[in-house]
């Protein structure tokens, strides 16, 4: 059950590039990453692509297949017809390094801007007690494999380089939500306010809940419903609660 598949792969670097056509063998049960590897082994040894686990667990092989953000290792060839031309391009939101590899350092910068988990005072290692129902909410977000496909698809930054400074993207807003929902995070006891920082430092207001991030998440995390909307609600509660508002005005 082999056939010749038609591929168009973007090749180039920061200075420019173009789509290049390839005809390459495909076998039963293969995924797009297998085809890219076959291209490397037979036709384009220096074709750059990131990958590690090839099992959808590490989030390295993110790219766009026919314009849609995908993990190459989880995109099965059987989802395309044999005569279809499959176009593979790097993620559009990040600057290209070479071929399918792009510079994702934006994400590492944003990660550093989220204050870390603050351990509760007075609890020694081994003394933490949490109920499963309470950890489950944050656990959903910790399924994130940091493929950055949600960042790639998010229209706030996809074609708006100028928003990158003020907006951390769904991945890191979700990280704020994760910490905000952590049963033992003591950050707020120390005077921090994660929801307020999501609004102020991380640009939560840019998000207009179109759910594009949720749609592309390979881990099926309900980013919008379970992280972003609750965070927005928390901000609304704090900012627009008439009584709290009164106090904030005074302290501003």
């Amino acid at each position, binding site marked *: 059950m082999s056939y010749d598949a038609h591929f168009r792969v973007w090749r180039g*670097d920061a200075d420019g590039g173009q789509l290049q056509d390839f005809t390459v063998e495909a076998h*039963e049960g293969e995924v797009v990453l297998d085809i890219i590897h076959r291209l490397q*082994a037979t036709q384009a*040894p*220096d074709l750059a692509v990131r990958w590690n686990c090839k*099992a959808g667990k590490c989030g390295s092989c993110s790219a766009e297949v026919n314009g849609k953000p995908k993990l190459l290792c989880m995109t099965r060839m059987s989802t395309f017809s044999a005569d279809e031309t499959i176009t593979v391009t790097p993620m559009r939101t990040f600057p290209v390094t*070479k071929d399918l590899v792009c510079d994702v350092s934006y994400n590492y910068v944003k990660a550093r801007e989220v204050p870390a988990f603050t351990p509760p005072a007075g609890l020694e290692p081994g003394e933490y007690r949490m109920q499963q129902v309470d950890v489950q909410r944050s656990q959903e977000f910790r399924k994130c494999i940091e493929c950055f496909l949600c960042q790639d698809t998010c229209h706030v930054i996809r074609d708006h380089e100028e928003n990158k400074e003020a907006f951390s993207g769904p991945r890191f807003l979700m990280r704020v939500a994760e910490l905000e929902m952590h049963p033992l995070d003591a950050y707020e006891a120390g005077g921090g306010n994660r929801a307020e920082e999501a609004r102020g430092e991380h640009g939560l207001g840019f998000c207009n809940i179109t759910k594009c991030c949720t749609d592309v998440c390979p881990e099926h995390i309900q980013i919008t419903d379970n992280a972003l909307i609750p965070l927005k609600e928390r901000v609304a509660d704090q900012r627009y609660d008439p009584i709290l508002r009164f106090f904030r005005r005074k302290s501003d």
Partner: protein
Amino acid sequence: MVDIDRHDYDVIVVGAGGAGLRAAIEARSRGLRTAVICKSLFGKAHTVMAEGGIAACMGNVNENDDWRVHFRDTMRGGKFSNNWRMAELHAKEAPQRVWELETYGALFDRTGDGRISQRNFGGHEYPRLAHVGDRTGLELIRTLQQKVVSLQQQDYREHGDHEARLRVFQECTVTELFTDGDRISGAFAYWRENGRFARFHAPAVVLATGGIGKSFKVTSNSWEYTGDGHALALRTGASLINMEFVQFHPTGMVWPPSVKGILVTESVRGDGGVLRDSSGRRFMFDYVPEVFKDNYADNEAEADRWYSDPQNNRRPPELLPRDEVARAINNEVKEGRGSEHGGMFLDVASRLSAEEIRRRLPSMHHQFKELADVDITAEAMEVGPTCHYVMGGVEVDPDTAVSAVPGLYAAGEVAGGMHGSNRLGGNSLGDLLVFGRRAGIGAADYVAGLSSRPEVAQSDVDAAARRAEEPFEAAERLQNPENPYTLQSQLQQVMNDLVGIIRTEEEMRSALQRLDELRRRADDLAVEGNRQFNPGWHLALDLRNMLLVSECVARAAVRRTESRGGHTRDDHPRMDPEWRATLLACTAAEDGVRVTEKSQPVLRADLAELFEVAELRKYCTEDELPRREPEPVGEDSSDEL
């Protein structure tokens, strides 16, 4: 050589998996300027692939657990060829290392009373594995990654620079280590992104590079597992032990071909999944070896009762150590009772409700659905052995993780000894944390005690740069250059077919011959293009390591004329107590790899006391057996048996 970055640190950690990050956190927390150099992006290390959990005797689910029980299980799993001191330290310190992760923000699954939940796993007497569904490795790597970030945030507050004391050099590959006399002085690396070279100057290097599985065709390992740390250590003068012991995980995916080898977590069996042949028969009852007969059930009724009443029933044989299960599957397939695609059936669908499966094994459910179009809540999975882990690695001092080379440390999979001839599931993540931390302390203490810093010689840097550029020069020089992708796939085939799960002298001799040919051909490796993110070039450089380490595996395996753990000889099927006390150590010589026999450290008397003499007799020679006289043995007795 103008095109080269220079960096000065106190400690360089090579690898950013669990062991590397834990070592870096420790070194940095002790005030050292620390660099982590890793081949992939930060947070993508192979540790993310670990599924089942972290073995630690916290006793949250069964309070009878303690370090002695864990120690015993580890030694049994390794067929008593473990370095006992490492097994002891691991069993004693793992709980503290797990609890510490909670202070970094980790969120493990919980028990009813709010503590960390623990699950059953092969070879562990009690439910012992702290876990998060079946994505524990991801939780571990993310937690450590975020701890690194939190230390960087602290540095930013204090010094205005996130990277003042801890920097991650991601997508940067170390190709050589430098020495000054016999002491470590630094490392040479290239950046994947642009091919620029970098020289690192540091008196201590911690190797945390993981394993060697990519030298085998069917493997659960990623491209990174090319034995870099093993090879770096050898070339620097350190020795590798136990290299003949390679773990084939019993359950890898077998279909479709492109996913062959991808891991199916042991948690499937820990949570109730069973192995069946094509007629639906649970065949593992036929494969309980003599040494385990007291602990494993010989009938289905008892095995099934064990899940609800572990005190009064023996364990299901599906939960035997991995080497036993892998051999059983291999044999069943060979005898024609396997699946259409050459595997056996792993059935959890008839054992747990669909909802329970989705909750406990979400990644497996997802993986089979997406990659194989199989719904594991309704159908059995087809599984077969896959190269998963190398027990062998750098010979280190158990307490400090230092190798024979001053300044060179190793922790995690790249270190040898802890797991003996076979690693228990769940003992890897604990190993990373316990010995990652110890390596960080070891390196910190060493650096603090130095009166002068070893230097990097410019001539060594130039030579390393020349070697790294060779594949480009070969492309211009040679008429018929070798293609790295072709050579790699031939190497993988040789190791898989001739030094795989079942071995014979004849096949391994032939493997050694072919490895020799491949090594000669590797001198003519050539690559196209330039140094900017060029996977062909990266592979050409990795291949040198893969070939060297593969030779270690084959040479040690030929030498060991017995079967033990992850080393099964068709021509020497018996486990031989005479071999138990023998370590095979590989060193690099002018003409290749040299294997020498050494004695295992003798089991400390108080640890020997933890076993019945009758059990020790199954593994040890009569001379080694303790003489159990009535006189008591002190806690720190150095009496040897």
